[in-house]
């Protein structure tokens, strides 16, 4: 049991370092932007000594944005880890297999038909949009699962079918996007690329319940994911009711990615990268992998958001693009190595 003890220590060290890093980057992200705010000013603002303008920028814009980055990072990372475990495919990612584009299509439909032409979320929309995204994500996931089903689902079929579904939703998105006026078109492009530019506390409130409910359930299911990773026959032999557990876990993954997409847009590769990095640090056991992946996801998205903010001053590039530029080469490396 020496190894178990040492891996526990390792988990503790890794988690501590990650949490410290997240806190540091969080304060860095409050500091960055068009107006620089020094750490002293931040402390002053919250002890009531600073200017109201500084407090406003921090409270109404920067803090909710960074909190959302952390929440989306956690959600996407857990969703990716579940998908990789359940499909026994290290390349599964909600962005690649079409779940994100399903959610994106539903949101585009909502904006196009219900919200009118202006891409400006009203107070009610903020809470309704996650449900639309969720329905879209569910439909995409159900389509992938049903089409890939032929005496069971093999990992290869799942991914290939996912790519097809992704293309179909991509085509549908383009049709509706081109019917929008130019301003909405650009906004929709930014949103679809993955962006947390419109952050506010109401988005935090819309996203928080999903993360608070689904992430603990997912982590408590670590044993099922561990067993499913071993393969269907072995899991069945060990007394897991495979289809039920797999269905439940997939639902959790779909719920998480749907909720994250509705707030952050189509952020790809985060669900791929975070679990991989976590696996390198603490190994494949999900009781350690899931929490570490969540922390890495939060750190990655927060850091990417800072890069996106500071790369081109004046015109922010969507954070999803930064992640794709980091994630795609890594994905290609995995492909070549495999």
């Amino acid at each position: 049991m020496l190894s178990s003890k040492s891996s526990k220590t390792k988990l503790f060290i890794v988690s501590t370092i990650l949490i410290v890093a997240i806190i540091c980057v969080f304060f860095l992200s409050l500091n960055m932007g068009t107006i620089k705010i020094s750490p002293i000013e931040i402390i002053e603002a919250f002890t009531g000594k600073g200017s109201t303008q500084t407090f406003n920028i921090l409270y109404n814009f920067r803090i909710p944005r960074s909190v959302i980055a952390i929440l989306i990072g956690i959600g996407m990372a857990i969703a990716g880890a579940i998908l990789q475990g359940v499909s026994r495919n290290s390349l599964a990612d909600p962005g690649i297999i079409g779940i994100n584009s399903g959610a994106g299509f539903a949101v585009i439909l909502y904006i196009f038909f219900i919200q009118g032409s202006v891409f400006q979320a009203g107070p009610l929309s903020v809470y309704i949009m996650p449900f639309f995204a969720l329905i879209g994500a569910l439909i995409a996931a159900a389509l992938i699962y049903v089409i890939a089903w032929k005496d069971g689902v093999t990992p290869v079929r799942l991914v290939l079918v996912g790519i097809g579904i992704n293309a179909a939703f991509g085509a549908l998105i383009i049709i509706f996007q081109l019917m929008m006026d130019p301003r909405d078109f650009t906004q929709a492009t930014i949103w679809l690329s993955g962006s947390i530019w419109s952050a506010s506390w109401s988005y935090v409130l819309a996203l928080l319940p999903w993360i608070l409910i689904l992430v603990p359930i997912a982590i408590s299911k670590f044993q099922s994911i561990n067993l499913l990773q071993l393969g269907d026959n072995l899991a069945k032999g060990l007394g897991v009711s495979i289809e039920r557990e797999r269905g439940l876990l997939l639902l959790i993954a779909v719920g998480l990615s749907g909720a994250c997409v509705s707030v952050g847009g189509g952020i790809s590769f985060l669900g791929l990268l975070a679990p991989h990095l976590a696996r390198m640090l603490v190994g494949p056991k999900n009781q350690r992998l899931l929490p570490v992946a969540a922390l890495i996801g939060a750190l990655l998205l927060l850091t990417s958001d800072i890069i996106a903010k500071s790369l081109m001053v004046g015109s922010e590039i969507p954070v999803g693009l930064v992640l794709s530029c980091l994630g795609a080469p890594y994905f290609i490396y995995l492909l070549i190595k495999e």
Partner: protein
Amino acid sequence: MTKSHSLESDKKTIYRPKSATLVLGIGILFLLISICLSIILGVADINLSTVLQGIFHFDSTSTAHQIIYRLRLPRALAATFIGASLAVSGAIMQGITRNALASPSIMGVTSGAMFTVSIAFAFIPVVSNTVIMLFAFVGAGLGAALVFLIGALSKRGLTPMKLALAGTAISALLGSISTGIALRFDVAKDISFWYAGGVAGVQWINVQLLIPVAIIGLILAFFISKSITILSLGEDVASGLGQKVGFVKLLGTIVVLLLTGAAVAVGGTIGFVGLVVPHIVRFIVGSDYRLIIPCSAVVGALLLVLSDVVARLVHPPFETPLGAITAIIGVPFFLYLARREGRGL
């Protein structure tokens, strides 16, 4: 020994010249009818006699004649040659890689073109049509080269799964960079117009550049069709039969780059034609590329001209993106192939 023998008999080429003649005959007939439809139908309907007059006795004062000559005719011709080029390059890709999923849109060609076109829009002050075409041409080659490179670097070569994933990753990477450029330099709308425009805004200058390249590519494709049939039996078989495998592959790749480059440069993103058409044709005429290539050219042209007519009529006076129409036709087919895990050659 027995294993390679069974493989050979397993992969026997099926040669159905009669079916092919039928496909060619009916296909060309329908193609001509569709081209006429494409000239007649549109926001302003023009009757057939005016069309014939416009072609044979052009009257520059007549609006209808102007529409036919300046808009409809180049558009129909562009659709014809783009369809033929995409279908034939898909057939060659599938033959060379022996991979059922190989096709221009899966292989990163369109995202490569989008990447270079966004660079052109962002950094060149006055972009002419010709410059855009040139950039798209180079980009198409770049995208395909990257995907092939991934295949060459990985140990077990380009399996269907690896091909699809490599294409997705390259598309994500190049697409992200182009979106970044587009948003930074405020050219998103220009690029999307090119990207999804299909053949709607095609001018004679584009057609004049497209047709010679496409014809050269198609003739070359026909000349190497026999070698591709042999190569599609497997590289071992091909070199056993005395074929210079490397040379045929190189020639095939050049043809693919010529055809897709020209097609993407004029038509933007038109996916799935190159995937679907060769499979349908193979189903009818068998597995000999001497028949597959000419029949794919005709069927591809027919499919694209018809899709373009549909794109115009779905939601007039707006143009529905041509690539979206072909995707809606092509995706179910892709899913069918995916269910078979990419087998089907």
